[in-house]
């Protein structure tokens, strides 16, 4: 078997995260399986090539942080900031994710099969995020670019101070954040939503979603709007 395609197994019960990440930054294989993460932080952080990593279990903070090209699947739940500042690649969480999932991420695809806690997609800068369940309050805060799809509900403060990101929500939405408004779903939006759902491997009727984005009223400061800040 080609050693480059044979998955290397790293057991975090016996090896430190530091050794795992050092290996992933200079990979000797194209595929890895990580066992016993036991909530460790920064698992598979800083990947900068197209390797695949399957993590069997729950991870702590910043799993797959700054991922740039890797295909990382977390077979479990993820702590704060999963795939934070991702540049490219794919990160999938089969369970739930804690707060700040996909924070500031510039690109790639983050899929959370379960639900994500508050601040999902905070300051997102181009990433696509698809959440099979719901997202918590203040999700999409200051979201600059990219798309976020929520297949169930979104908490209060959705899209507060949002810039140019597009948010799609299928279920109930709490109070919208400052300068976030519902916008009409046109054909191009239904088309990109269908693409995102397909990329995430999720099936939903795109007509059940509503779109939210920036009213662009806060792009320039006016003291009369002080109550909105």
């Amino acid at each position, binding site marked *: 078997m080609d050693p480059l395609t044979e998955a290397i197994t790293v057991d975090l019960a016996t090896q430190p*995260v*530091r050794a795992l*990440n*050092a290996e992933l*930054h200079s990979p000797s294989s194209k595929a890895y399986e990580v066992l016993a993460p036991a909530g460790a*932080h*920064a698992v598979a*952080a*800083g990947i*900068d090539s197209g390797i695949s990593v399957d993590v069997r279990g729950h991870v*702590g*903070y*910043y799993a797959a*942080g*700054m991922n*740039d090209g890797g295909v990382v699947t977390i077979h479990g739940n993820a702590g*704060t*900031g999963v795939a*934070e*500042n991702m*540049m490219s690649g794919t990160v999938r969480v089969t369970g739930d994710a804690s*707060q*700040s999932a996909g*924070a*500031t991420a*510039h690109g790639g695809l983050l899929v959370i099969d379960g639900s994500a806690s508050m*601040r999902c997609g*905070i*300051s997102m*800068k*181009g990433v696509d995020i698809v959440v099979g369940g719901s997202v918590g309050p203040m999700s999409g*805060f*200051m979201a*600059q*670019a990219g798309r976020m799809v929520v297949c169930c509900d979104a908490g209060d403060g959705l899209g507060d101070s949002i*810039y*140019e990101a597009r948010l799609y929500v299928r279920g109930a939405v709490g109070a919208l954040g400052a300068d976030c408004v519902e916008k009409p779903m046109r054909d191009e939006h239904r088309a990109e939503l269908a693409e995102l759902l397909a990329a995430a491997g999720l099936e939903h009727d795109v007509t059940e979603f509503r779109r939210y984005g920036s009213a662009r009223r806060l*792009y*320039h*400061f*006016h*003291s*009369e709007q002080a109550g909105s800040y």
Partner: protein
Amino acid sequence: MTPSPAERGLRESATFDRATIAGIRHAAATGVYDIRGWGAKRAVPHFDDLLFLGASMSRYPLEGYRERCDTDVVLGSRNAKYPLHLDTPVTIAGMSFGALSGQAKEALGRGASEVGTSTTTGDGGMTAEERGQSKTLVYQYLPSRYGMNPTDLRKADAIEVVLGQGAKPGGGGMLLGQKISDRVAGMRTLPAGIDQRSACRHPDWTGPDDLAIKILELREITDWEKPVYVKVGATRTYYDVKLAVAAGADVVVVDGMQGGTAATQDVFIEHVGIPTLAAIPQAVQALQELGLHRHGVQLIASGGIRTGADVAKAMALGADAVAIGTAALIALGDNSPEYAAEYEALGSAAGFYDDFQDGRDPAGITTQDPELAARLDPVRAGKQLANYLRVLTMEAQTIARACGKSHVRHLEPEDLVALTIEAAAMARVPLAGTEWIPGNTKRSGAGPSTGRNTHA
């Protein structure tokens, strides 16, 4: 010639002085608060309020130009595989591309590199010009994460996690629409021309325990190669430094209220934070109690450093290095009399200009206007900065030798006295001619009981 108001016997109010009256009139006319650059302009206790004692009978000085007085400093040796080794303890503070022109950033890199010190990115990412011209570049990790990417992170020589700055502790960055050019907008993933207000809190951590995990992640991404700084605006400095160290900082940067900004509300600049003079002793105390002062975690002080005397005083109080921002811009040519007429046309004057936020800087430094920016020759400006940095270093050496020190780092609080009660209390050195440190009730064992901090 018309007599001045003072010559006519008119009395100006100390409470409602001309600047205050102008501020009220501006607020009334526009309905917006004043946003400006620079740092605090009010007078606060500062390094000018301290003096060195120098050597005499009881201290032995070093010969001015013959005996060696070193100035090098190692930063980030606590955890990093590759700590920084700088030739001078005077570093360049973080200033963003966006706030500054590309030419200005390049000039900062050139000047710093020529004298063997570091420069620092800002809230807007790393530019190729800056990286290319900076031998040692510190990459700031800010709440906005504008332009943050792992490729540049790995290109950096150190990482500075920014919690705040002295001009606006508790506030985020600000860049008004007139400076959001297409290039700046592209680097920050923002629409061109909008008023950009950065977040004041990091998006994926909320306290010192989280910060420890964040720093761990940054080390993991960069394979534990790079020093990690934590920068705070000077406020509750004693506690902030202890928490920063607990979170894993290799270097703590403390920026006093005189530290500059490219754009912040005037009310914020002048009324939030504490002077650099008050912050350094708090930071030193925190590091001493942790057993890490001068032996593990380095302290960089900034905010109002102008002369080699300021450098020496900051180091005598316990800083390992200092950072300069406003002074560096002046060295590049900011507020130059060469552009006096243009400053006047903007409603300001050379030496007073602080409208860094509006992008019309005649000196081509705090602007994104291509024509204005082209006025700044990065080679010439970089040379000026290098000259200035050399002067600061030599001035600090001069004082250190006079105090009998073979390294500027050997300066200590015992070398200092204060001219005012306020400065004595803040800096924790005695009022000149006395043994009195206001507020300090501790007594040491042997010799005169000054109760002052020492660097033993």
